[in-house]
């Protein structure tokens, strides 16, 4: 086996599809994960929060090439007009159908190995996964370390219904969606939040999705980069009439209210057992809650001419600020696949 992908979510699938697109045979890739269906975890979260449309746009899909985008599969003519004005939000159902197609066309199931990986060790010219095998190229697509749960609350990304009185903690996309849902359910809603919500179309300014913004970003000093990443991590949601209604803000949940924690995910490498172990074992460079990565999302200390350790997904923000998006997964996957193909 030439390469391994650790993780079985959307980032893993898009990485796998990219490798296959670039001609790496399925029998040279092993995918280690806990769910054969890469949409399982994401689907539960989206369904819990009753998400109907993606926040990403037409190119927020899992196939290797950006074209065709989801809008080309959405048989709704005005969608083309929406997409040129960046207002197209693909329906969840379309996205899931597309994910199933990518899974099937890429041959994902042939490479999937059901296993929760506990540790990764550099070993000679590659990496041992749980003490087995040697993979010259490994991509970590671990996803978020877990939900940011608060005692006595139900998390927005876990299945739940709405009581007549609902208090929503948070000010991001999930919180806004919960306001909308609870309102639709006829609930009385209050919001508990530390700051006023930011209204921006995507988590990260668009310029940071391309070299135009990334080149200066990669030149930032460590402190400036940490500061910027914290700033970008502030909760936000897009401008839309869907969410434009008054919600009463309170400091504490009023007695008798159902409390929903729209608090997103735990953050930082230390929250993920596998990453924490990797950092500790190999003494990897870190800053604040971030693992220091090269601009191509590789771990510098463990990557050389013959082997590659790349990080995709939320843990890859040091290289790509929007790493927790599908575009971020692709960024890491493309760089990873280039290295894999170069050393073939």
């Amino acid at each position, binding site marked *: 086996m030439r390469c391994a992908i650790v993780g079985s979510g959307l980032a893993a699938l898009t990485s796998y599809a990219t490798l296959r697109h670039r001609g790496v045979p399925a029998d040279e890739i092993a995918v280690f994960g806990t769910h054969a269906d890469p949409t399982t975890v994401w689907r539960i979260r989206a369904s819990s929060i009753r998400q109907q449309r993606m926040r990403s746009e037409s190119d927020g899909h899992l196939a290797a090439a950006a074209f065709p985008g989801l809008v080309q599969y959405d048989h709704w003519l005005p969608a083309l007009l929406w997409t*040129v004005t960046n207002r197209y939000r693909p329906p969840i159902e379309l996205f899931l159908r597309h994910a199933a197609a990518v899974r099937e066309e890429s041959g994902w199931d042939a490479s999937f190995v059901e296993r929760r990986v506990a540790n990764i060790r550099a070993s000679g010219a590659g990496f041992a996964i749980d003490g087995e095998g040697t993979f010259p190229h490994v991509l970590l697509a671990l996803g978020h370390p877990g939900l940011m749960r608060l005692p006595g609350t139900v998390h927005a990304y876990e299945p739940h219904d709405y009581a007549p009185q609902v208090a929503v903690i948070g000010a991001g996309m999930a919180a806004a969606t919960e306001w909308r849902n609870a309102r639709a359910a006829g609930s009385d809603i209050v919001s508990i939040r530390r700051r006023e919500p930011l209204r921006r179309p995507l988590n990260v300014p*668009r310029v940071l999705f391309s*070299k*135009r913004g990334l080149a200066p970003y990669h030149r930032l000093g460590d402190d400036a980069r940490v500061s910027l990443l914290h700033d970008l991590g502030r909760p936000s949601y897009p401008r839309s009439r869907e969410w434009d209604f008054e919600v009463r803000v309170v400091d504490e949940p009023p007695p008798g209210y159902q409390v929903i924690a729209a608090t997103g995910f735990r953050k930082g490498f230390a929250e993920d057992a596998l990453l924490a172990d990797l950092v500790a074992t190999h003494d990897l460079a870190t800053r604040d809650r971030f693992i220091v990565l090269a601009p191509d999302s590789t771990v510098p200390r463990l990557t050389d001419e013959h082997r590659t350790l790349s990080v995709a997904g939320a843990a890859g923000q040091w290289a790509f600020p929007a790493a927790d998006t599908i575009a971020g997964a692709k960024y890491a996957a493309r760089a990873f696949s280039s290295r894999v193909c170069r050393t073939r």
Partner: protein
Amino acid sequence: MSYTLIGRVQSRLVATLPPLIVALAIHRWWALELVGLMLLFGLALDVCVYDKLIDYQPGWLALPLGAGELGLIVLATRMPLTWRAFDLFALGWVTAQVCGHGLFPRLRLEYAQSGGELGRLGAIVATAVAAVTFASIAGAVAVIPPTVHLHGVVQGPLVITHAQTLVGGVVRGGVVIRSDHVTLKNVTIVGGEYGVDIAHAQHVMLDRVRLLDFKMDAVHALDSSLMVHRCSVSAPASPLANGILITYSMGRPMSMVQKCRIVGVREGITTHSSMVDVVDNDVVGTTLHGISLSEMSMDTARGNRVESARGIAILCMDHSVCEISHNTITGALVDGNQDPSRQGIAIESYFYAEAHVHHNTVVASPGGVQALDLGVVTR
């Protein structure tokens, strides 16, 4: 998309490939010039404006930017845009959209995240496009016909047998043109059997030429394609002399006679077996026909003013197909009482000719609009 400067430039250059190929294939100077201008303005805007002002370019912005670039080209050339030029520009614009949104992201996975940069192969293609475009323009400029400025009076007849541009001066005895790509500009021609005698030539341009004292025709074109623009024809040497005659040129590209003033000749503008646009001319005091479109010609007479024509002002004759519109005919004169076809007729379709007539103004012309001898007038 958020382009880097290199990405903008490379994407633009590579997307220019199809219009460049078309321009080279049709082998027309205007097309090559347009592609060159598209690149020149585009690259200048990329470097000086877009890269500085546009951090992120949404898809819809391509439309106003494209319109702006087109406007700048039109302003810079100070020429009205022809449909063919618009088509070529539109091809470039559409190609850029198809490449930017479909082809490039398909061929190069990192296209968007690299800010439009196309990698090593893209850089080579972009450089090649730039080199071919500017080399072609340089090559075309190198073979542009020489320009000769005439000073004072030149004794003719002046015989032109190779491509050139003559500017200014007075030529006595007429000019004979026997070569393609000849331009006469601001030349006054006095005398000669024909003022200008053109045969078997195309891409001939007569621009602001004055013709006087010619014996037979002011301009005589046989098997040729020419553009006559803002000419002045007057004071013929003989009452039998004609104005502009374009004859047996059906196998050549279309000709055009535009904004000329023709006074006191036998026939003002005449075509035989040709395709000619006769547009916005003033034809005054002719003794046979004002404008005559004849012998299986396929012509247009539009926006002309024909005044005091004896017998017939505008004639479509002998199996010709004519589009006659927006002309103003005043004071067509009755020419004796023997011939019914010359009774001060403003527009006449004669002998199996088919004239499609609309939006003309006819004043004080007793014959009105008529179809005679199996001619047809449709409105």
